[in-house]
């Protein structure tokens, strides 16, 4: 990839020189921001010629002039009400900036830090400085480079060793009111040895045609237990290009649930590196698309050490002219004997205009492993629809029941009750005759 930076891409470079832009960086990595900027200038935006971007066109992002918000737009708690989980602790970011007034960080155990990453860096937080930028290398991909160069702030969550955080933490990212604003939230989550924490990372929007490019680095120290939810609930005119990097140490147990309903053009890159023995990593996802939505999930699971398990289950339900891409690579390194890796991607097309590209891949360099992968693309089973109808259930309700049934194993795997209930409610409201489904299940 060495595409010449097109004229419009210069506006992203110009943002780097914008007065007031945040410049804080981790002390072990001096010149990090400048290097990332230079790397982006070198890479330019990916094109369809890049293997990883064959089916997702970011040309419109490259061509659009976005405004980098140097300060958060004014937003009230009322406006955020639909997306807030009141029982959770909460850190709110508007246009990539932490807003203390909208956050609620009470009742967390001693030593747990949740809030602004920029503030943590400025305050000299050793954990923040040590970990930031260690996992997500900006030289790999243009959007990581851009995020590294341009981020103003983002969430910082540090849970000390052996600390159990009972109260789930919601990290709520809001594209503020306004037109074509862009934000590059940079998030760092560090769960110390044998710590336990549940996080809900939500992306929502109040503005039009926003661009959000978050990078989340999550480090799970030995035996840490992290339950991570990622909710994509932005407006359908929003563009969202994200990276989540999970770094798992020995015996860590990391599970993620990516629920993608919003956004017009959505790309989620997920890197999970199983870098210690005995890691258990679960990556589940559900995407529901319609209209002209395009959702691309790219997964890389790196089995570096022996005796690790990874389970991936991504399911998609596509309506109308929407598109989905699933690319899943399981990479088993030579040392990673006794790997147990399973990857499944299943897609349900509800319209003949919808389409999916699914591409599961295995690269295995160890000999004593168990790896399976599979993907399916299908329609509702006509025999099943008729069977249900022949027992008195109306056509729409029959179809909705079957769609719900398709999504069900993802729903059932969500441990966090409020998120699970929310998802169920969303499905009931989205599916025709959802009331019948609600009563039936």
């Amino acid at each position, binding site marked *: 990839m060495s595409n010449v930076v097109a004229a419009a891409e210069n506006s992203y470079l110009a943002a780097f020189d914008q007065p007031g832009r945040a410049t804080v960086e981790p002390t072990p990595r001096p010149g990090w921001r400048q290097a990332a900027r230079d790397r982006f200038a070198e890479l330019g935006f990916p094109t369809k010629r890049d293997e990883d971007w064959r089916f997702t066109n970011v040309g419109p992002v490259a061509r659009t002039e976005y405004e980098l918000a140097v300060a958060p737009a004014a937003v009230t708690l009322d406006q955020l009400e639909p997306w807030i989980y009141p029982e959770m602790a909460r850190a709110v970011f508007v246009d990539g900036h932490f807003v203390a007034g909208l956050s609620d960080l009470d009742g967390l155990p001693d030593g747990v830090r949740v809030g602004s990453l920029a503030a943590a860096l400025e305050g000299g937080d050793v954990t923040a400085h040590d970990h930031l930028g260690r996992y997500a290398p900006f030289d790999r991909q243009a959007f990581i480079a851009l995020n590294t160069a341009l981020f103003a702030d983002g969430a910082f969550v540090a849970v000390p060793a052996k600390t159990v955080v009972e109260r789930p933490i919601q990290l709520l990212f809001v594209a503020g009111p306004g037109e074509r604003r862009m934000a590059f939230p940079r998030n760092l989550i560090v769960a110390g040895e044998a710590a336990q924490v549940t996080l809900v990372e939500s992306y929502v929007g109040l503005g039009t045609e926003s661009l959000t490019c978050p990078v989340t680095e999550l480090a799970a120290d030995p035996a840490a237990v992290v339950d991570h939810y990622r909710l994509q609930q932005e407006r359908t005119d929003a563009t969202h290009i994200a990276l989540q990097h999970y770094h798992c140490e020995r015996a860590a147990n990391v599970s993620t649930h990516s629920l993608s309903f919003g956004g017009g053009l959505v790309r989620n890159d997920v890197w999970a590196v199983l870098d210690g023995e005995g890691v258990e990593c679960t990556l589940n996802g559900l995407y529901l698309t319609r209209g002209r939505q395009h959702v691309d999930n790219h997964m890389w699971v790196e089995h570096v050490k022996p005796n690790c398990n990874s389970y991936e289950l991504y399911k998609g339900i596509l309506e109308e002219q929407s598109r989905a891409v699933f690319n899943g690579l399981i990479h088993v390194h030579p040392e990673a004997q006794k790997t147990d890796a399973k990857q499944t991607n299943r897609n349900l097309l509800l319209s003949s205009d919808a389409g999916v590209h699914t591409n599961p891949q295995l690269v295995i360099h160890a000999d004593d492993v168990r790896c399976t992968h599979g993907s399916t693309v299908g329609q509702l*089973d006509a*025999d*099943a629809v*008729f*069977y*249900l*109808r*022949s*027992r*008195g*259930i*109306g*056509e729409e*309700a*029959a179809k909705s*029941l*079957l769609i*719900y*049934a*398709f999504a*069900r*194993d993802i729903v059932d795997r969500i441990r966090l009750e409020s998120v699970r209930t929310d998802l169920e409610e969303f499905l009931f409201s989205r599916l025709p005759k959802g009331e*019948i489904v609600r*009563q*039936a*299940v």
Partner: protein
Amino acid sequence: MLKIQNLHVSIEDNEILKGLDLEVKPGEVHAIMGPNGSGKSTLAQVLAGRDEYEVTEGSIDFQGEDLLEMDPEIRACEGIFLAFQYPVEIPGVSNTYFLKAALNAVRKHRGENELDAVDFLRLVRERMKMVEMDETLLNRPVNEGFSGGEKKRNEIFHMSVLEPKLAVLDETDSGLDIDALRIVANGVNSLRAEDRGFLVITHYQRLLDYIVPDFVHVLVDGRIVRSGGKELAHELEDKGYGWLEAELASEATSAAPVGA
């Protein structure tokens, strides 16, 4: 209650039913027998409203109304029940949820209240006993991983909960051992009532020892070629269909005008 007249049905331009007449009155049990591919399941599916089958001619009257005008779910609500020859597996939908949704749809259509959870469970438990079905099958997804016999029993169980007016059983006996057969037959017999009709499709006279029919019809090549009492089933069992087909062929030749 059911009156089929001159029914012609095609699928993908192949005519399968070629002028079928049949009348079922309340309280009657009709058995339909016939060789493979003669159109028995086609008839059953057409009655249930599968729209892949095209009705090109004829009519079906059900309780004074035009059945062919109704969607499958309306037919079910009006009291038609089909026990499938091949019950469909529905992963992710539990047997109970499915039945509850079905029963409530049917009750709503009849202007009855939806059953609450307690009453529903009571009903379901009672009917399960009737078909000696294991209660664990209630919470499993519909038919998924059920044995052949369990699937058939599940169909009868559904029937007993939905209490149809006309039940069509498409080879519910095939593949059942003698004990399961007896259980299924008991289930059917306990539902026999003055206002309920049955259409029992089978290849085996054995079933008809348990579910004693009022009429037996033989379907060959899309037409009912012979009707009679339960003794006709014995005759078929002894002689096979070859006998009938040969007889029909000779009737056809002798009926042909001379010199044709």
